[in-house]
């Protein structure tokens, strides 16, 4: 598993697809080191990354995702308010009919909460200690999946 060919394939996919990712820091805490590290890693892997800074609301994140037409949304929450914030975010995505955009969440999430988050529609939860390569790999897969969705294609695929 892994190995050079794996990485090369990943790099080629990223290059061909021009993957666009929104990295957002939800909630009131001001610790954005984790979000910035992820944003930079995705950028260095060849993706186009929109970083929106700290203290974003779910409304801002969804509007930004729509205007920027991103492939994947990555959210970082450290405040402990991940359940209500993500519920609001996922509901808004549905309401605005952009719930075909996969969402991943990173942060110090208690393991018992993970199931509830998946039920809301959060695609993936990354716990502290996840390698950046894993995040990159997931993001490419998620972007591929998103571009396969029918509703998204009806909106003018290319």
């Amino acid at each position, binding site marked *: 598993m892994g190995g050079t060919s794996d990485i090369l394939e990943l790099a080629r996919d990223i290059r061909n697809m021009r993957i666009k990712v929104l990295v957002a820091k939800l909630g009131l805490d001001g610790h954005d080191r984790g979000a910035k590290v992820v944003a930079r890693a995705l950028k*260095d892997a060849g993706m186009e*990354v*929109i970083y929106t800074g700290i203290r*974003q609301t779910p*409304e801002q994140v969804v509007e930004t995702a729509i*205007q*920027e*037409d991103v492939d994947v949304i990555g959210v970082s929450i450290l405040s402990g308010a991940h359940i209500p914030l993500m519920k609001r975010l996922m509901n808004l995505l549905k309401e605005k009919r952009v719930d075909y955009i996969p969402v991943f969440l990173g942060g110090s999430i208690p393991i018992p909460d993970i199931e509830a988050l998946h039920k809301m529609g959060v695609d993936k939860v990354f716990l502290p200690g996840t390698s950046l390569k894993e995040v990159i790999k997931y993001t490419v897969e998620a972007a591929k999946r998103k571009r396969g969705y029918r509703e998204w294609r009806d909106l*003018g*695929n290319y």
Partner: protein
Amino acid sequence: MEGSRELLRSALNGDKRALGRLLTILESSPKKAGEVITYTLDKEPDAHVIGVTGIPGSGKSTLISKLITQYKEDNHKIAVIAIDPTSPLSRGALLGDRIRMQEHATDPSVFIRSVPTRGVKGGLSFSGVAMIEVFDYVGYDKVIVESIGVGQTDIDIMNIAHTILVVTTPGLGDDIQALKAGIMEIGDIYVLNKSDKEGAEKTYSYLEFALESYELGVKRGWTPKLIKTSALFGWGIDQLVDLIEEHYKYVLESGLYNEKIGRRRMLMLKLLSEKIFMSLLEEYFNKGIDRDILRKYDLYNASIHLIREIVEKLIKYGG
């Protein structure tokens, strides 16, 4: 094609999701982009395009955010095209201009789009210019373009923006060369931002002198203006908007408006041709090229041969 026409119609009705998708089409498919733009050419353009350039970190994005606030109050619809550089090695980009404008993210009358340069020499890509046409078509009447502020971009921005702001900061006052370095000659309005900082007066005096001695160039009928602002504290923003509007009035009265539209469309044609040709060229070098070509021709004729092959392929298969 059906798809893009419907998207345009939805976007015209205020559907931001459709508009977001349309802009992606401009970025990714030259053929469909061409169709989209052809539809938009039905309408006479009437948006005011404002270019914001200047040294990196001078506060362009923060200033634009303040302009948005003002223009919103005057019931304008504002679109921002925020250009950021693509890293030439990884081909990735960190698009950070938006951070300074996020307070407007959910406003119905504002649309912000980040645009990576994607290896385009001058930074201003075909899609960046094409986005102006689409924003104008769907009813945004103030279109603000934030450029990366180096080199060729600014020549291009001159061709597409009706009003050009050049943003600078205190501390450069002693360095005449820095101020004179090409970039400074294209402004309709020079903005000394961060005037809350030390040395603002000195830099202001220098710029004033440079302007008075015509070093920064008078363009027919308009004398470049100078203004001090602090985007951080909100100083001078009202006056800046007044100056921008004064310049726009001049643009409309002098006939410069349509001249710029003409140049913008020519630039769009040039940039799209370039994009199509470059991607075919790249494709050739990635797989199609005859490795023995340099044995068959000398270098110059090998290039000509290659160009001819690309053009023939283009004509045959339509790109």
